[in-house]
């Protein structure tokens, strides 16, 4: 059985970004994808991607659903940021709430349909499985591995220790 660990990745003023680390990996998927972007994106596009994600969404505006592309059930992709690169990049994520996002990895979209980008498509399929596992824990009232602070207007996801999840 595959498993992954869910933990905080980067905390910004309005949004906490989480990521997952697969049991066989050392780096979280978000870190792996950041490294991929460093090697494959033009510097300006990487800058724009980070500005969009961490400053505009993370610091200023919050994780408004309008900013995300709904790709599959539970799974979205972040606002793209293609200025100079040949292909748009997709950073796969699960928007949990206005202040919580789980970042997976992603890739370059090489054709109109996701199926035309086999590497990206397989990452989407894997992310869907993990998103379903995360959702199952959140919906299970008896499972307190993930806690929501429901006292605030916007729910706050609270994970103090990494959570191991099977999928």
């Amino acid at each position: 059985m595959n498993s992954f660990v869910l933990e905080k990745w980067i905390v910004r003023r309005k949004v906490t970004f989480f990521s997952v680390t697969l049991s066989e990996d050392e780096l979280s998927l978000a870190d792996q994808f950041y490294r991929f972007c460093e090697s494959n994106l033009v510097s300006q596009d990487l800058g724009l991607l980070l500005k969009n994600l961490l400053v505009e969404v993370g610091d200023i505006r919050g994780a408004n659903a309008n900013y995300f592309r709904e790709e599959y059930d539970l799974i979205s992709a972040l606002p793209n940021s293609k200025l100079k690169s040949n292909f748009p990049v997709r950073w796969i994520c699960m928007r949990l709430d206005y202040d919580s996002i789980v970042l997976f990895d992603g890739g370059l979209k090489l054709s109109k349909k996701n199926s035309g980008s086999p590497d990206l498509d397989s990452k989407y399929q894997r992310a869907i499985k993990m998103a379903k596992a995360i959702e199952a824990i959140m919906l299970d009232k008896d499972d307190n591995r993930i806690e929501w602070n429901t006292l605030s207007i916007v729910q706050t996801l609270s994970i103090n220790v990494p959570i191991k999840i099977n999928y």
Partner: protein
Amino acid sequence: MSSIFEKEIEYRLNNISEDIKRYSELYFDLLDAVHQELKQQNITQADLAKSTGKYPSEIHKWFSGDHNFTLKSIIKLELALGCQLITIAIKEKAKASLEQTISKQGKVKSLNVEKSLNVGSVIDSNEVKIFPINFINMKSVSDNIKIA
């Protein structure tokens, strides 16, 4: 554990060029303004596709960051939504200079550009500000120019 690249990412964020920063801000401002109008007017993206004569996939692209907005596409959006999305802010100095020039030419005694520009907009710098202004409520600049 947080990202092992956190410091590196922070360094990158602190060194993003001004044009990229501005592009990102304007993009999100535009996105917010359009979504606010769509919600207020109860218009779907499919409706918008119809009224702009675009394919729904193209409209989807406009809102997903794959599209680099041109003046043409912004104007199409403005016409479809019946509102102004972008205003050009003019510095007080520039306005004063304009008034002086026109006054010297003796063609116009009073120019009240201020009033028309202030409809729903914030003008405090030489910047482009984005948010909806209803055409219905907006007086044209010519309404405020008195010809001698």
